[in-house]
């Protein structure tokens, strides 16, 4: 009965909706409209030529789009396997120790709070061929310096800091999920003779399955949006455009090549892809949620 009277809704909801509507949804819709225009140069933004589906057709034939898409898919794979995977292993480990848990919890989160720009600059210092951290280690150990951002290694070296940065984020989420499992369940399990790895497999994992699913969705959609770190680390998809992601390529086309319409089409593509993927993930990993 408390919430029968709907009038206060206006007071509660309208301010947020106005801000979101004007500065998020409207620009996004405008962006969708732009994707159907041929806009060369940002100066022509109001006077673009209607181009129908031309921008989308051009995308199909653009080899850089294919490359970027492949890189994004690779990044999604890395995110699920390494980001969430490492986070899960670390969380299970920290959950099983008593001393120092708080310390690990604190320091694992460090990279999350640092800006992608700062991390990008930092990794520039690590990867530099002359005098970078990695090559200094190698030469100390008596090896030849390695060209880290080469054709073959480039995409992995650009992915590495992106993956590394957010492990701590998923770690904290999973760890809290683990802490939320009631102790009695483990006690019963021990009575039934379930211990060690089995305990993790049959009890911990199923009980935090929802949490892992959320992490995977976040990791995959995050992998689709990735932009600033690769851009700072390897501008213009260096080397040779091989490390372009859809995000960086969209920025390149809009702001450097000044094909704003084409850039708009790419960003629409990113969102559609994101919707499809997160929908699939939720279907794919659907299991009965266990309520405790």
């Amino acid at each position: 009965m408390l919430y029968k009277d709907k009038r206060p809704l206006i007071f509660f909801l309208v301010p947020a909706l106005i801000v979101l509507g004007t500065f998020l949804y409207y620009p996004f819709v405008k962006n969708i409209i732009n994707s159907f225009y041929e806009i060369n140069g940002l100066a022509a933004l109001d006077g673009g030529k209607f181009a129908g589906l031309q921008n989308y057709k051009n995308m199909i034939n653009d080899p850089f789009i294919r490359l970027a898409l492949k890189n994004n898919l690779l990044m999604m794979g890395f995110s699920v396997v390494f980001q969430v995977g490492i986070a899960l292993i670390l969380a299970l480990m920290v959950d099983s120790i008593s001393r120092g848990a708080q310390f690990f919890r604190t320091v694992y989160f460090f990279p999350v709070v640092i800006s992608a720009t700062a991390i990008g600059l930092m990794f520039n210092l690590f990867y530099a061929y002359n005098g970078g951290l990695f090559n200094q280690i190698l030469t100390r150990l008596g090896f030849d310096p390695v060209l880290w951002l080469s054709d073959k290694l480039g995409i992995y070296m650009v992915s590495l800091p992106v993956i590394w940065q957010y492990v701590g984020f998923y770690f904290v989420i999973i760890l809290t999920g683990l802490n939320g499992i009631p102790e009695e369940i483990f006690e019963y399990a021990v009575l039934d003779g379930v211990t060690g790895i089995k305990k993790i497999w049959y009890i911990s994992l199923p009980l935090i399955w929802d949490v892992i699913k959320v992490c995977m969705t976040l990791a995959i959609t995050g992998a689709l949006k990735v932009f600033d770190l690769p851009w700072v680390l390897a501008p213009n998809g260096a080397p040779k455009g091989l490390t372009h992601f859809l995000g960086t390529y969209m920025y390149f086309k809009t702001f450097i090549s000044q094909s704003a319409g084409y850039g708009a089409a790419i960003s629409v593509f990113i969102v559609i892809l994101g919707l499809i993927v997160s929908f699939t993930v939720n279907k794919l990993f659907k299991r009965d949620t266990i309520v405790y």
Partner: protein
Amino acid sequence: MDNTAISFEKQVRRTKITGIAAKICIYIVLILWSLTTVYTLFWVVNNSFKDKTVILTDSFSLALQPVLDNYINAFGRLNIGRAYLNSFIISGTTIIFVMVLAGLAAYAMTRYKFRLRNTLYLLFAGSLLFPAFSTIVPIFKMVYDMNLVSHPLGVIIPQTAGNLSFAIIVLMGFMSNLPLELEEAAFMEGCNVFNIFFKIILPISRPAFATVAIFTFIWSYNDLFLQMVILRRRETYPICTLLNEITSQFGTDFGLMAAAVTIVILPVLLVYLFLQKNIVKGLTAGAVKG
């Protein structure tokens, strides 16, 4: 939330880890990973106190005799104090806007049943997928029309919009777990909805609000893209924009770059260290249910 309960849980669980060897292995792995996060930062900070030529030949040694040249250089070239102030004006106001708007909206979304509720929820969740750069050009036009280019509000309002969806979802996750009984009882005693919101919901949801505040701060402070487009005059530059400029000009001066990175990450690390206990409480409630 109860510390003694958690540590008790831990103790029960700890008994299940058998064998010293397994324990040592676990600690080795954990420490190795913490080295990747701690040592990398330390490497940068340590080198910011060295001469730039030393870094190229010997970046591992401890800067036992710290050289302040890089910082003198950075502070001499740039008005860093002013840039910090700009950053805190922008991020501080954004946090307040986000907390107020998201708090109100999340409360309505969890307590009221209305026709568009599910649609709204989808809209909030869907907007998390929007890449920031897909909205930048129209946003710039609007900011210009409002005469807010090179004005803090020109960054604050779009940043508020950008962080709002995440905040609403986190707060909804937390609030939907709160028992209704308290509110019902207050209603019986004659409180109206607004009293209940301000006197009951807000104080209880403090951890969730703290989480929202931290993440909003991190994202707002670190957001280079929007700030670069909107803020044109040097005296309005926040710290990230200012230091991005310096690094694009003095890219080979590793010492100056290390100092620049240190200057950027220091405040955000401090804020995190002070408020980190709250991150876990609020975030998990929200994200897990989201």
